[in-house]
């Protein structure tokens, strides 16, 4: 079971049109995510819009401060952040510095029907 991480990728086809601005991009999930209500799977691709304007219920990506690493978190009702899929939650030592908001999630499947 490999550690979960996010990697910036370029998309092809119609989806690439989302990332035609400097402030929109895609992140792919690498490694095995912990099970939770978000049900993240390896290979899931997140469409992100840069910005710090967040609301309760949003999923965000934030800088962990360690070697330009990004993590996913969900914004709670009290606007605190909760880690999802095995990503650590922000802490006093590692406060959340939001990079962007998750707009959507793409999951593609191989011809055998499995997630690819």
């Amino acid at each position, binding site marked *: 079971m490999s550690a979960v991480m996010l990697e910036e990728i370029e998309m092809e086809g119609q989806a690439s049109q*989302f990332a*035609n601005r400097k402030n929109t991009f895609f992140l792919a999930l690498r490694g095995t995510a912990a099970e939770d209500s978000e*049900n993240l799977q390896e290979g899931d691709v997140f469409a992100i819009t840069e910005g710090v304007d967040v609301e309760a219920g949003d999923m965000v990506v934030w800088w962990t401060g360690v070697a330009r690493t990004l993590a996913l978190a969900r914004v709670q009702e009290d606007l605190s952040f909760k880690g999802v899929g095995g990503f650590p939650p922000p802490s006093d030592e590692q406060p959340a510095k939001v990079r962007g908001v998750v707009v959507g999630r793409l999951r*593609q499947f*191989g*011809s055998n029907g499995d997630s690819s």
Partner: protein
Amino acid sequence: MNFADRTRSILHVDLDAFFVSVERVLDPRLNGRPVVVGGPPEGRGVVAAASYEARQYGVHSAMPMGQALRLCPDLVRVGGSHGMYSRASKAVFDLIGGYTPLVEKVSVDEAYLDLSGTHHLFGNALDAADKMRREVKERLRLDLTVGASSNRLVSKVASGFAKPCGLFDVRPGQEPRFFSPLPIKVMPGIGPVTAKRLHDFHIDELGVLASTERWFLEEVFGSYGPSMQRRAHGVDETPVCPPWERPERKSLGHERTFAEDTDDLKVLRGRLQRLLEQSCAQLRSEGLLARTLSVKLRYADFVTETRDLTLPQPSDHDLEWWEVAEQQLERMLKKRRTLVRLLGVRFSGMERGFWQGGLFEQERVVQRGRIAVLDKIRSKYGEKAVQSGDRLWLRNSR
């Protein structure tokens, strides 16, 4: 600005390269090869569906078959079986109907589903869509692409992003952010003419359209301007309409272009009869009666002529329409004396209801019984299972 109704959960499902996929289930030797479904090039055939392998050569739907074969010499052409596609489509939608009764089928391979309130049964929309996609793949060996969001418009665009064989879920409340960087042409309802006009005003992205002054859009596009702007925010309140909630149809019809232009009355009569049979069967299946029939002829010189006929009582009975339609066809042909390229029929003046025979209309009642039997045979064995004598002339005319 965020108008999204976060409580709705709408899916747009689309069967990938549907006709080709069905052919591949029937003949796995087609897997991995560039395949098209459509008529032969010598008969003015066009591409009805193309596999992703064929699309890499620039082949696409509605392209003349001759052109497709020139672009991709290794192209495998399959004639297609619409009866088989209808049965495969029904099997898919029967399965999908197990997830929600609110299914609006928009074509043989595309539908909208409202999954709002089904969270406790199937999990969130993404999980439900995932289960549905796997079930379709396992049971029918067909690939489903799914777009999910809080409304139809955004889900339709999202499914375009997920092709082929994927799933794109736009998070609730993120619809405006999702739409903002997209080129305006991705939004359903914006055609090339509107896109060109918007481009002339440097409006090339949905985000720019969403933030343009409303009065300006109203000035340039009339009432369509503000509606277009609202949609550019990712807002669409259109409900998913299952068949029993669908608004009444205003018209219904079919038309056919001949393989070769013709003035052969037997061929034209045969085609007219077939078009009437198809259209009347559709009227009956939808529980509709029509008062007016339009017969359309397009001649070899591309001049198009349409004549309307009205019966005293609305009808869904092809034999009742046949007599007047046949007379009208002959009148039109005598008047112009030019080869015919296309023949079409269209019913309008619709009323909901089923034909009810009168007390002294025994012969018509018997005829109705025959038609009901024919409808059953055709729905089970295909449209060509039972044909009238006149239609046999068409065999040599395609």
